[in-house]
């Protein structure tokens, strides 16, 4: 009987390699850099293409312990959340590849304050950083411009860079040698369009990471999943403005669901709270990794451990 031949896709495209962080030799102060992207096939299909870099895991830390995080999440960091530098150190010790520093929308948030927090985090950890503003376009601009200047040369990822504010954020990235996290609302064309706008301002594509936005498990993850699959297939088919690594924030999405927040007053069928909450973050992340995520931002150290185990198992 003639053998069956395993069908291999002959993709013409390749995801660009993007390097986060800069060591002293490269004009920064990071102990190491992290490179993502470079794939020439769909996630982990090593039988037909290259997967030069495993997906990277970032741990989210805040300048102040956030008031809206469930106790389970804060306790997991064992007091380190009281101080952003301690938190960043704990993230590194837990095995993160990147630290995602995010500023709370609080009264003390100002440009000088943001600079000082950034300094402290840069000296606490040697990992490359992603920095998110408080999530309101005007305020984000103020904070991120200051952060960009303060962290000159560090190849930070500045986020989020969206249609509303991309001009300011891209200008800051251009001026100070950083990258941007280009976020568009779960739509292939909007993602592409934003990448083009950013690129047209002169930012090299090797400094753009795209963030297609996602929903948590149970709250629209299938939309993010399919948008990411379509973006990645477009990239492999040779569409250059989709050939960028993807960053998503499953931690943020998962930990705002009721499943991850409510310890009591929920159906018994939801099972043990701690296990369920962590499973929610783990499955949100693992599913998005299967649809092409190159960087996932997580919150719980146990999720980090388990998502890492999965990535290692897939990379083999």
């Amino acid at each position, binding site marked *: *009987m003639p*053998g*069956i*031949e*395993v*069908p291999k896709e002959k993709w013409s495209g390749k995801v660009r390699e993007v390097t986060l962080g800069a060591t002293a030799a490269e004009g920064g102060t990071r102990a190491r850099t992290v490179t993502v992207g470079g794939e020439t096939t769909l996630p*982990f*299909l*090593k*039988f037909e293409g290259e997967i030069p870099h495993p997906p990277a895991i970032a741990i989210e830390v805040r300048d102040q312990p956030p008031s809206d995080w469930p106790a389970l999440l804060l306790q997991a960091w064992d007091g380190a959340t009281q101080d952003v530098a301690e938190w960043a150190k704990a993230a590194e010790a837990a095995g993160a590849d990147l630290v995602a520093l995010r500023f709370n929308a609080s009264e003390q948030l100002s440009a000088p304050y943001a600079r000082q927090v950034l300094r402290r985090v840069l000296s606490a950890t040697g990992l490359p950083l992603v920095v998110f503003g408080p999530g309101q376009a005007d305020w984000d601009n103020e904070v991120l411009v200051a952060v960009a200047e303060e962290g000159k040369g560090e190849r930070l990822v500045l986020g989020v860079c969206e249609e509303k504010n991309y001009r300011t954020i891209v200008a800051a990235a251009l001026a100070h040698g950083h990258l941007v996290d280009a976020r568009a*609302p*779960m*739509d292939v064309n909007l993602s592409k369009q934003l990448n083009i706008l950013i690129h047209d301002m002169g930012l090299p594509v090797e400094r753009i990471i795209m963030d297609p*936005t996602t*929903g948590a*498990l*149970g*709250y*629209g*993850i*299938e*939309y993010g*999943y*399919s948008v990411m*699959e*379509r973006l990645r*297939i477009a990239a492999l088919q040779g569409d250059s403005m989709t050939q960028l690594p993807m960053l998503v924030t499953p931690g943020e999405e998962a930990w*705002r*669901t*009721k*499943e991850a*927040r*409510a310890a009591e*007053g929920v*159906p*018994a*069928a*939801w*099972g*043990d*709270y701690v*296990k*369920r909450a962590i*499973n*929610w973050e*783990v*499955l949100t992340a*693992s*599913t998005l990794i*299967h*649809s092409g995520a190159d960087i996932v931002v997580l919150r719980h150290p146990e999720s980090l451990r*388990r*998502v890492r*185990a*999965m990535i290692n*198992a*897939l*990379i*083999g």
Partner: protein
Amino acid sequence: MALTGLQIYKLLPASSTNPEVKAHANCKECGYPTCLAFAMKLAAKQADLSLCPYVEEESKRQLEESAAPPIRLITVAGSAKKLEVGNELVLHRHEKTFYHPPGLFVRVKDTQPDAAQVAKAVADYTVDYVGMSLSLDGVAVEAAGGDFGATVAAVKAACPFPLILMATDPATAEAGLKAAQGTTPLLWAASAENWQAMAQLAAQYKVPLAVLGPNGDLNALADLAEQVKNAGVEDLVLDPGTRDHASSLAAFTQLRRLALRKNERKVGYPLIAFAGDDITLAAQHIAKYAGFIVLDQFDPAMAYPLIVLRANLFTDPQKPIQVLPGVYEINHPGPSDPLMITTNFSITYFSVANEVESSGLPGWLLVADAEGMSVLTAWAAGKFDAERIAKTVKSTGIEQKINHKRLIIPGHVAVLLGEIEEELPGWEINVGPREAVDLPNYLKTRWG
């Protein structure tokens, strides 16, 4: 794989090499003016082959085979519930949709004294998700040196769901099949060592049979499946023998591609995966192509997220799940009770409605037509703006049902506050919490 009109035409009398058959060419007996016209109708599935009395046997066989799905539909059944898997047509859900959600099975061993209790727990487990009542699908009973037949009987009595009988020794397997009579279990598994006897049992007891290949060797698996099929068992399920993430992803992807892209009939069957107690491996198999997933434990904290993931990925992307825009009454509200607004994306609606409902607080929930998008997505896409919100208030007749003019908007669209006030003169607009989970507390402390 479906044939084109021209390919079908080559099989009809007009193209025959047999002069006697060819003599009927374009005889119109099928009701169409020519064989070609009939072929086109057949390709469009608007006519039935039986209308032509002159099709040759070999052509008939080829046409029937081409009409068969590339991945065979397999049915297993318990005493009160059945499961169908297979018949998938795409590799990526956005290409069309995934059709048959994989069955989630929990494994028990015949040496396990509580096997029947676990089976009962599996059967009793249901969980509500966006208005749907969802459950697990069955129990896999493994022969591990205990009394297999008795365990299968006990599990069957405790659980009306389909079973998977895991026994590689034919005599043991038969004891299980006898105990499962009256239901249609999946028999696992025929391997290179036992396939003749297992095929015979599957044929005799009329059950689908899983074929187990050596770890990831797809050629050996395909050949074995072919042998079993030739021995008379058509309902097959394939187990490529992989048990880890990397080799499972490769094998399952390759098998799916072989069936769909290469129309490789030898592997055109649903796949079975064993995920142990690894939730990420089980989740991988939901996304990547399993028809049956066997878990080593029953744990609601694991079952619930897997069931939800399955529901999400098997939602038809062409039909986003929406609720009808309008006024929804929660906990019998009166005229002075709070009025909230959200979008018609069903997940958004259910998150909000469930929170308010379980808080016991009465309220009016307005659902705006945001084209089935969540609050944030709809807002970003301009489908949930001040104008649409005002229109929803005015067009739903809510003003006649309440005696106040206060509207709570989702915290995520706080920026719309001013514009809504302009669109709705005389109204007080309140910015509610961003997440539905914080609504009950908001209503308790801020409304009044």
